[in-house]
């Protein structure tokens, strides 16, 4: 019976990812797309946690950590690129 509830949670999370994918494609500015990509990454993290409970395994926990770190790094780097035009700058200006 818990399997049914976890499957429903997985379907709801998939619908959330689809909504974020709409904003990722149709977003008017680049920042909309970055916010949508960040939310997609975080929803994927939640999906993998639900999947771990569904399969009753601990083997996917590293993937949760790695996706969290990669999402944060990607958002930071893209926001910095939009704001300043470059990701890694020369040493003079801070």
């Amino acid at each position: 019976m818990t399997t049914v509830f976890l499957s429903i949670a997985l379907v709801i999370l998939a619908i959330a990812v689809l909504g974020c994918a709409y904003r990722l494609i149709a977003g008017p500015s680049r920042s909309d797309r970055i916010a949508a990509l960040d939310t997609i990454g975080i929803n994927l993290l939640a999906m993998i946690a639900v999947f771990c409970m569904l399969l009753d395994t601990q083997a996917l926990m590293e993937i949760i950590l790695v996706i969290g770190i990669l999402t944060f790094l990607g958002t930071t780097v893209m926001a910095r690129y939009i704001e300043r035009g470059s990701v890694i700058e020369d040493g003079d200006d801070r």
Partner: protein
Amino acid sequence: MATIVEWIAVVLALAGAIFCAISAFGLIRLPDVYLRSHAATKSAALGVLFVLIGAFIYFWVVDGIVNAKLLLAIVFVFLTSPVAGHLNGRAAYRSGVKLWKGSVRDDFKKVLEDGGKSAPDTVHEPEPPKRP
């Protein structure tokens, strides 16, 4: 006893999934990048924290394992999601994304105009907007 706690974990995961769906709905419907990041950052982080805490309780009760990686992921998401939203909003403002036409207050514009002399905590409260 274990069954009850297992059900609590599953209901937490379901509630987190519903929070994530609500945040995706806000991401679709809200009119502005700033309002959208308001929806995308906070409620999505809350939903993911619910799901992760549910998974943590589930593995703690069912398998008897305190999973340190899951705890680390909870702390990491809780710390980095607001930071990412803040960075994205500031980048959007400085790259010239317009505010929604119904926005009534813009503090960061004043700070940018006088070169950062008036820090945000010294900005005086503006007049309330005139209602027609």
